[in-house]
């Protein structure tokens, strides 16, 4: 064997907290090549890595569907839970009750959220459960092979030619009306915007709902589908150009005053919205609802941060929990003393 001196290894690329990208990645995807859901997983990996969040502080939750499989494909060092169809809100709420320090990220499908689990979805909205809730919206049930979902637009066509005659459910409208405190829409193919939105969601204190149009290449990416790549590319109108400045970075002014709007998020991060063709105030609920309805009438897909509300209490605030996670409180903190039981017994005598 010849003696070759190995070159010194190139320094590994790490993030803010010294972790490589590997623990942010997951298992190899088993979804169809080109599925919008895969792009969203990639963004999630990227965003958590860039923000430098310890993966083990995250709980990755999902329901059932192609979309709900994806938590296996990111953050391998975070606990994940592929639960039951449409019930990720309940399971996630429970997990956060047990451990309020967990960062919840929930991935669901439009079948999960707008059909079987719509009851859980709207009640999670009312409760303002502090987590990031992603709807990978393809207008169909991918995993059961392409039936229409309740978010399919009126007039959109199934591969077999069947036309949807019914009114779609817009999860962003529901989100704004019923209590989510950050509501956004994006497109799986819009890398930059989706990353920025996800970062804002993760920094938000409260429930962040993101409806991501995520084409199903196998069952819903054809002519006549309003959730296909080509349709969304042609009809997407972004509300604003978004940039996100994490709390640990200095803000650099690179946009002209008057053209931008700054939203400070709970952890001190900034969300900078650059006005495009309209002056949009995402803290104004009525304007948000109005803009979504107008876009719908024009057949447009309005993307961006649609709504932010920063003051409302989350479920965990309302419960006024002790500082430590309930799950691991020691027995002395959760079992009242002997005298307490004696007193109650005496009262019942």
């Amino acid at each position, binding site marked *: 064997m010849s003696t070759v001196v190995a070159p010194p290894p190139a320094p590994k690329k790490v993030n803010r907290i010294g972790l490589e990208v590997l*623990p942010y990645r997951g*298992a190899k995807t*088993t979804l169809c090549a080109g599925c919008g859901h895969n792009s969203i997983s990639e963004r999630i990996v990227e965003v958590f890595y860039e923000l430098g969040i310890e*993966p*083990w*502080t995250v*709980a990755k*939750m999902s329901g059932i569907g192609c979309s709900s499989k994806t*938590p*296996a494909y990111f953050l*391998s*060092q*975070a*606990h*994940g*839970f*592929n*639960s*039951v169809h449409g*019930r990720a*809100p*309940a*399971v*996630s*709420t*429970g*997990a*956060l*009750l*047990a*451990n309020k*320090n*967990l960062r919840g990220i929930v991935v669901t499908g439009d079948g999960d959220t707008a059909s079987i689990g719509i*009851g*859980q979805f709207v*009640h999670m909205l009312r*409760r303002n459960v502090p987590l990031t809730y992603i709807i990978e919206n393809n207008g169909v049930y991918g995993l059961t092979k392409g039936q229409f979902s309740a978010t399919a637009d009126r007039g959109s066509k199934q591969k077999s030619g069947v036309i949807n005659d019914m009114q779609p459910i817009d999860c962003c409208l529901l989100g704004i009306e019923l209590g989510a405190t950050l509501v956004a829409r994006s497109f799986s193919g819009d890398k930059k915007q989706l990353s920025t939105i996800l970062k804002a969601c993760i920094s938000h204190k409260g429930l962040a709902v993101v409806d991501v149009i995520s084409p199903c290449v196998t069952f819903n990416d054809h002519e006549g589908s309003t959730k296909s790549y080509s349709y969304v590319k042609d009809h997407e109108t972004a509300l604003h150009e978004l940039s996100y400045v994490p709390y640990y970075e200095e803000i650099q002014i690179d946009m002209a005053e008057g053209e931008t709007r700054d939203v400070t998020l709970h952890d001190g991060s900034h969300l900078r919205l650059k006005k495009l063709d309209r002056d949009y105030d995402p803290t104004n609920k009525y304007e948000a609802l109005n803009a979504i309805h107008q876009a719908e009438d024009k057949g447009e897909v309005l993307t961006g941060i649609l709504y932010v509300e920063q003051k409302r209490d989350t*479920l965990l605030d309302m*419960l*006024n*929990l*002790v*500082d430590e*996670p*309930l*799950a*691991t*409180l020691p*027995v002395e*903190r*959760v*079992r*009242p003393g*002997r005298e307490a*039981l*004696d007193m*109650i*017994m005496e009262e*019942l*005598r």
Partner: protein
Amino acid sequence: MSTSEVSPVASRTGGPSYRVVNDWSIQVATVNGSGSQTANSVLMRSIFQMGVPVSGKNLFPSNIAGLPTWFTIRANKNGWIGRKKEIDFLIAMNPETAREDVLKLQEGAAVVYDEPLKLNELRSDLHFYPVPFDKIVAPVCPDAKLRKLVKNIIYDGVVAHLLGIDLEEMRKALYKQFGARKAKAAELNWNAILAGKKFAEENLEKKDPFSVERMDETKGKIIIDGNAAAALGCVFAGCTVVTWYPITPSSSLVESTIGYFKRLRIDKATGKASFAVVQAEDELAAVGMVIGASWAGARAMTSTSGPGISLMAEFVGLGYYAEIPAVIFDVQRVGPSTGLPTRTMQGDLLSTALLSHGDTRHPMFFPSSPAECFTMAGDAFDFAEQFQTPVFVMTDLDLGMNNWMADPFEYPTAPLNRGKVLTAEDLDKVAEFARYRDVDGDGVPYRTLPGTAHPKAAYFTRGSGHNDKAAYTEREDDYVNNVDRLSRKFETMRSWVPQPEVLVNEKAKIGIICCGTSRYAVEESRDQIMREYGIETSYLRLKAYPFTSALLDFINQHDRVYIVEQNRDAQLMALMRLEFPVDALAKLRSIKYYGGMPLDARTVTTDFVTQEGL
């Protein structure tokens, strides 16, 4: 049974020379929502305070106000506090049912009634005591609006006189009921009791044989309903997360829990809570939150009744396969929501044992008394965490919502059994963490909690499609290995569940088995069978499923074994059929009652006697 009970009816009507002491039942017939609850519990408590064993059962309609309701108090010097079918003493306050109530009585019974109802015209073989309630209430309660509420308690005074209840005990019971903060209301009611007593003294001549005499059989005991007992059990077992959806007869379990949580589990210094309670949108969400919370390491519970259990089925299956603890109380009641939702039943035994899809089996505990509701609540949390699986505590409406005389609860001193949870420090010491590997040979794997700061901690939770490292698989052998391990885990449970109560009588050829609240009827029935027919029986009361070897041993020791249960389809027996050999099964006979009332001894005895051909 005491001699007085079997004495000829003639003597029951034969005047006060013949006495039936501390062995009778009182039924109060009122209208739902008329405020008779206070009067009834004060009456029951006064008897209890005189040292006489007593029970109280509320038979109420699925309605808020206006429909008939009956409260039955049974006093029994021998301590038989199950339901007794025959009513000795009727207090007829409800015009709607008075006629039927009176016609149902047996000869010699006593009837206190609202005078205008003229019930005395219905029969001549009863002792009637007419009381003009409206006339008596007017002077003691000047505020006409309150009269309707105060009117009822007057019968406490009347009955105190007729039965010989110590008025001082009644006063204590009343003030205890109202508490210091409602002194004024207590006084108003006390005056009404006195007025009833005075009326009775001056106008009613005692003709019936029933009376109460002081005993010393209730010393140190408490009065509590099973739901409150279970609630205390949860609060002292370190439960931290409760999610629920209201349903009779389970709601008061959670409502009591919330009450005790607020009293005992709020940090005095900070005002912060060591508990979280969420009223969910339905039972699916309630159990989903419990599964999520338990997955993340909390002691979480939900409480429901049959209809809720049905809705929880999918999640419970997931809990079984993904191996997630959960404590679920099932306060059983009759049938679907428009069945008899306010009547009791042991109706969910079979469906709960096998709840969900695929091969699933779930442990169930069967408390029979408030003390067991308390201890088994604690046991259930330990068991759920030890075995990482949903556990059901199967009580029923009779136990949950009725007031029971009970032994005081013992303070739990055992440490909480949090099961096989690996912390970050533990993970440093192990070469590999495989979530579903049977490391110890008992079928129970190790788990980690989300949030554990260790590169080895994380795993991905999904239903049954996983290998022992929690990786995705659809392989035949992985699936079979996993479900076989789950079977091993179920076998391990047999030596950890609460063992049955067994009374083997060497002379007995016949054994009787039951669980839960059936015990009161069965214990009394065995006494009846012995005294009336001279037949000795052995007895086994199940406290849990899976069954332990003691059950099969018991069956093998006897020629014939009766299984007494409160449902039509012999559900408990059906569970035995799933696992016992044919020769054992051939010995089994069934005594079933499913009318929705608490089971009574005579029903058991009569069925037994018929089947034995006696």
